[in-house]
């Protein structure tokens, strides 16, 4: 698979480390979250067959985190964003 890095252009997926569902960006608020919220966040996954937004870390490159939209049935990558931009758009400050 080739990941079209927003800053570096097309890169081999072997340069990256895979982290999982991009929903991991939406970490529960430590001040208000219940143990149940943490359980669901840490352990449960949608695991879709089809389009999946997921986190890839460019370990063998510029060490940026990316949100890659990829089809889990065909492996086709349709969108690549910087995770930083996605997190900010969702209201995360850091």
């Amino acid at each position, binding site marked *: 698979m080739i990941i079209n890095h927003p800053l570096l252009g097309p890169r081999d997926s072997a340069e990256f480390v895979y982290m999982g569902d991009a929903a991991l960006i939406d970490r529960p608020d430590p001040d208000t979250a219940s143990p149940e919220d943490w359980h*669901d966040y840490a352990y449960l996954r949608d695991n879709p067959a089809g389009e999946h937004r997921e986190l890839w870390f460019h370990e063998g490159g510029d060490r940026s985190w990316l949100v890659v939209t990829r089809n889990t049935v065909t492996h086709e990558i349709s969108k690549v964003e910087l995770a930083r931009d996605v997190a900010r758009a969702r209201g995360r400050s850091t």
Partner: protein
Amino acid sequence: MRYSGFKVIKEALTGHKGWQPAWRDPQPKSHYDIIIIGGGGHGLATAHYLASIYGETNVAVIEKGWIGGGNVGRNTTIIRSNYLLDGNEPFYEFSLKLWEGLEQDVNYNAMVSQRGIMNLIHSDAQRDAFIRRGNAMMLNGADAELLDEDQIRAEYPFLNFNDARFPIKGGLAQRRGGTVRHDAVAWGYARSADSRGVDIIQNCEVTGFRIENGTCLGVETSKGFIGAKRIGCAVAGNSGRVMGMAGMRLPIESHVLQAFVSEGLKPVLPGVITFGAGHFYVSQSDKGGLVFGGDLDGYNSYAQRGNLPVVEDVCEGGMAIMPMIGRARLLRMWGGIMDMSMDGSPIIDRTHIDGLYFNGGWCYGGFKATPASGYAFAHLLARDEPHETATAYRFDRFRTGHMIDEKGMGNQPNLH
């Protein structure tokens, strides 16, 4: 019809006209006591033990394709019970004992071959860890044997003992481990269950569950609604998809694992070898092909095919311990979809929906577990309580902190 050597000779002399289909091709009834979703190894084993041990014969196995077309037909056929943790080892040892009696139990030649498995040791720290694991195995009634370099050299002289980076310093052997003809496991269980009255319904896809007031009443399928008192789901890599129809999110990700087979060779490899410094395992099939595999590709996938970086990684692992493998040509490679759980261990449990039960999260170790998984799932479906070897395989272990994490990797499924 019982199979026997006498029957084979008789048919050979009479033109093979007396063989019959090994199982029927029934249409679904409107209602069963128990429905099992998934006609793979685990589902068919569940049906066999439900009928033979628990007396439940009003049972259907429904399968969207053909039986044995998923992971039971795609694995590297290794059986073993070399686990460390108490939640796992008694279960896998129970499974190995069932393998030892499988062919007589189901009257089917599954070519169970206890040719032994050898986990190679490459460092002092690894030797310590393997000694600990061997002790844990023996405490749970399994066999384990620590070998030094010379003993391994005597058995496997062709290994790369003097590799500069990963020299072979010893090994942990389990002599009762080995390989099994994987397709025959599915067929043997299917034939046995069918002969006891279980309906095996192929080309019948589950499209939804009928759930009313927190109770599951049956499944919607491509052949119409089928009702049941209890429904068990054993669909491996498709667990997330099927249980999603019941509104459940699981502690599971689906990942692709590739496997490989070389061209047929003369006998060179007597047992199963695993590389301790990388991730590589290899055995030789009775047809002569070297059957081997390594790591997951590492990303969510339902594709049943992987990518080239892992092919390279697996072949590097093979070359590192067994350089002569480089002379063999690769014949085929394929992928299967693994239900990777959050701690690397399986789940055999009730769900919060009455009448709906789940068996999954086998990661890439499901084949060796097939008999015990079927037995324990049959026990759960028939008695509504966990089998004594499967009490730790609960959904709520992630909530209560009772994870069974053999590798200590945490909730990162692609690392288990």
